[in-house]
């Protein structure tokens, strides 16, 4: 280990950057599929943060939560994709702007 030591802050910075990328994607993209990808990116950014904090604090809870999040994200994507396919079959599009029934 010469010179460079990776600290908790570096991991958190990475986590923040990935989260920002995910959020930017979620805001800019109108393709629902891309939206899912962005959501996954954000979730994983959080996971990185959790795992890093868990490691540096010597507390396994964070890693346990990361696992939970992975599991929940998987099930969420499964449901989400199902809904998405249904939407596509009905409207022949997965453009986000087609979902505007909640207009106030």
């Amino acid at each position, binding site marked *: 280990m010469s010179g460079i030591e990776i600290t908790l802050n570096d991991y958190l910075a990475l986590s923040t950057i990935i989260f920002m990328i995910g*959020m930017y994607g*979620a*805001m*800019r*993209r*109108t393709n629902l599929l891309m*939206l899912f990808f962005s959501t996954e990116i954000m979730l994983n950014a959080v996971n990185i943060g959790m795992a890093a904090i868990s490691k540096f604090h010597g507390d396994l809870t964070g890693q346990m939560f990361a696992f939970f999040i992975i599991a929940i994200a998987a099930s969420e994507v499964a449901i989400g994709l199902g809904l998405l396919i249904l939407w596509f079959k009905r409207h022949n599009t997965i453009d*986000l*702007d087609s*979902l*505007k*029934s*909640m*207009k*106030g």
Partner: protein
Amino acid sequence: MENYLYIALFAPLVGSLIAALFGNTPKKLFVGILTSGLLGVSLIASVNLLAHVFTTGEAIHVNMMDWIVIGNVSIPFGFVVDQVSVTMMVVVTMVSTMVHIHSIGYMDHDTGFNRFFSYLSAFVFSMMILVMSDNFAGLFIGWEGVGLCSWLLIGFWYHKEDVKKSNDIYESPYSTLSPYSSVSPGYAANEAFIMNRVADLGMLIGIFLIFWNLGTLQYDAVFAHIGSLDTGTVVAIATFLFIGAMGKSAQFPFNTWLANAMEGPTPVSALIHAATMVTAGVYLIVRANEIFTVVPEVGYFIASLGAFVAIFAATQALVATNMKKIIAYSTLSQLGYMFVAAGLGAYWIALFHLATHAFFKSVLFLGAGNVMHATNDEINIKKMGGLKAHMPYTAFIMTVASLALAGFPFLAGFYSKELILASAFSEHAYILWATLWVTAGLTAFYSFRLVMYVFYGKENYDHSKVHPHETYPFVIAAMTPLAILAISAGWFEHEFVHMVTHILPEYHPHLEGSTNLILMIITIGISLSGIAFAYFKFKKSGGYFSESMKNNFIYKLLANQYYFPHMIEAVILKPYLAISKFSWKEIDMKLIDAIVDGIANGFYAGGESGTAMQSGSLSKSLKWMGIGILILLILVVAFGNLK
């Protein structure tokens, strides 16, 4: 004995509640009989208690239940029957039983018959609470209760229209020559209620001061420790308590409501506005005599005010033609006498005059009720005349009561009034004595002016419409015990002194025998000459005031009640109305309403324009979410650093 106490206290309440069940139904005779019967039960219990207290000299003290217990503050519902309260109880139940029976006759054609009895019994219950309570809090509850019932009963005929205000002395509701006692019953009721509220604020402050300084409201504890307070505090307490007493007993400047309260049914005037409620102020002073003894300077003020009110009211009664107002002013005048006695430290004399006055004044009012009932509610004594032939019993009873009021020798009023005059003289309060002495003469004159106008002389009523007739025999029977007491109550002076001086300070006018005799003779002299003047002047000329006298300024001053109602209207009512209108139109509508409306409109407009955010687009919603998170983050960082 405790059972008697509870029976005396709660029998009127039971009657009132049962009568209230039939409040909205047409007249049911048994309601009147039942409430009168329960009052009779209360009377018997009270007399039993009187016998017990008189023979054993012991007070009965019960704690019915705890009421307010917070920390070391404890205000129980406690009742005490001692020599003072038992006197009041017997007087109150005696008069109210007879008034209840009388009302069965008086109200026989009234649609509100059942309601009337409910109110009347509720009044008696409140009055019993007032006199029996063993602490100032209970006294105050009774005090407010009688005020409420007084309001209900003065405004009993609330549906009557307002009378137009007029400058004609024979039409103006502010004049004692007009057929109207007040603008309307509703107006009179509100006037009485509001004036009493103003005075009650004084009383409340007095009670708060007691509690603040002594930490208790129990009479025993307060009176035991009142001497430990500095004089300034005691003066404040005594003054504020007396302000409350002034309101209830209609002392100047709270006097106008009493005369206007004559709009109520006449039995109400007899019970509430002559015999019982208005004497509550005197009772308060007598009950709290330990407080007033410490500060004699307040006592002198009370005595001076009492003497002033005595002559102030008596002079107004001289020219009045409104029968009930004449009697109301005589009540006011006699209340002045009582306050003179109480102020000079002669508490038992004040209580004695209270009791004798209750009997002769209530029967006088009941007689006036008979007369009004017989003449289709005529109230102007000049439109009666010669009624003696038609209603001999009423005429006899009213004459006797007027004699007692005038202080005719060996009738009830003679003894008590004599004692008050003697004590004023022996305290070297010669001005008070002279005022009361003149008032005694005026009292004799106006009482017999009324009797002469009503029962003697020409029949001035409209023969085509009015057919005067004696009232029901049972009504006369109800008045008889009161009339007998009006004659005989004074004969029990020694027993009374012996009983009440157990707890009231002993006081005897310390005059030499000869001085006392001379005083007595000149007092009897002025009373008799007042009566004689009223009698012979009427026999000679059939009236009292010539036309030229009626244009005299003094006559107009007296008939207009010293322009006091006009002054109240100009100085208090009109400015108050103007201020109220200003507050309503300028402050309330333009400031308060504007702020409230502004807030509501702001939210409404904000919501309206905020709907633009809800475009339905998910990515836009996400953006708003992002912005929200950002704001929250900034806040967290900012406030996190603040700590």
